[in-house]
């Protein structure tokens, strides 16, 4: 089985990699690029800890995505969310509201929620539930996680409104 040379842009960095077609995006991110923030869970698409975002901000299950299918494309992982070493609104909300416990599911939840904030900034409770239902959490019972996402929706909406009136 021959390896293929692919280009993958991860968090804005361009990588040229030789990968076997059988390699998943999750394996390449973690084993080859050593970005271990994205976790490896069920490896079959049902637990969500492997979630990354594509260029459109969609939540993508990296464990069931072939790396070769992503040649020339761009993804964001949890390592690429904080800016200048500072937590973003969503991460800040998780921290302040106590939505992090053991931390294994946290990257997957952050990327799932980030996708929601990008694609449905006016998300209601149903949309929040929908965005998170693909990801598992065993410690928090999802309670504070949902509150944190709702808080982030609010904070971002408030900021947009502010800038709107000032703009």
């Amino acid at each position: 089985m021959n390896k293929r040379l692919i280009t993958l842009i991860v968090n804005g960095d361009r990588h040229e990699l030789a990968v076997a077609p059988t390699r998943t995006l999750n394996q390449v991110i973690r084993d080859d690029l050593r970005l271990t923030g994205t976790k490896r869970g069920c490896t079959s698409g049902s637990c969500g800890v492997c979630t990354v975002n594509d260029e459109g901000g969609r939540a993508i299950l990296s464990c069931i995505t072939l790396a070769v299918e992503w040649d020339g494309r761009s993804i964001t992982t949890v390592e690429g969310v904080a800016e200048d070493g500072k937590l973003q609104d969503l991460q800040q909300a998780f921290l302040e509201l106590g939505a992090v416990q053991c931390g294994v599911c946290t990257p997957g939840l952050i990327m799932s929620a980030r996708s929601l904030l990008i694609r449905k900034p006016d998300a209601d409770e149903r949309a929040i539930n929908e965005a998170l239902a693909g990801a598992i959490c065993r410690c928090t019972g999802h309670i504070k996680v949902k509150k944190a996402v709702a808080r982030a929706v609010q904070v971002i909406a408030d900021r947009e409104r502010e800038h709107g009136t000032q703009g």
Partner: protein
Amino acid sequence: MHLPSFEYLKPDSVAAAVRMLGEADGRAAILAGGTDLMASMGQRLSKPERLISIRDLPELQGVTLLADGSVRIAAGTTLTDVVDHDGLAARLPMFHKAVRSVASVHVRNMATLGGNLALPTRCWYTNQTETWRNARAGCFKTDVEQCHVLASSHRCVATSSADTVPALIALNASITAVSRRGERKIPLADFYRDDGAVPTILDKDELITSIQVPGFTGRSVFLKVTPREGIDFGLGNIAVLVSGPNERPAVVRIIVNSLGPHPMRLRAAEAALLEQGLADQGIDMAMKVARQDLGEVTNLWTPAGYKRRLVRTLLRRALVELRETEVGGR
């Protein structure tokens, strides 16, 4: 999970994809969203020699709302793109709800409509890792002549669980399939077979390219029962379409899925409603005769008896909901 090795092919057109599929002589699989295929390959339930990647083919993307009220959806359109398409929810609300109920957002971001229609059937004796399956004898799906679910069965009764299927059958949808032999249009109602191991009539060298949904006037409802919302395959799902007034409907179509190896049309129940309308009497009669059209009701996470009861509940709730939407509803 480690995938079995395969040759990766990336055609630059539908014609090229069809040619590759033909050349592979049944040993290739289409890689669209891959959400089911990857899991299946990881378990080594599928071991195609070649994967033909079609996700980036522009000819296979897009939803078109036509002036005659119909809708055309290219088979490689992701379910999220179908859900988000401006105007689709208004034109086909029941179908929109069905698409939105598939798996999770994460899966819908990659899975395609064509993939959902061609979704392999599921059974907990086969949707397992290779080592799991090695612990017991095979079955019809793995080329051994027996069924672990129903010992008396002469064919595979694994469950057909795609959510978009009952909705599209109720809407009289058809699909276009292309092979080296040419193109054919197949009514979705004729697409499925009563065999969990070979659940569709799609030839091994055929590719689904588009889905056509004719316009309709009437009301429709889609319901899905799941252990958990937003992630699971259904324990049962139902699509009901009615046109005409409650007392005397002109058209009734009732399709259920996730109960057996193929979607089932409940014609006896439809007949009861055509005759008696959607009043309580008609609904009771429909519930009573619904079982006549149920084929083999199989288990996946539930006892079969539970599923038979579930159908009647689903039917009643769908009909009651439809009845309430008589005035100006869709």
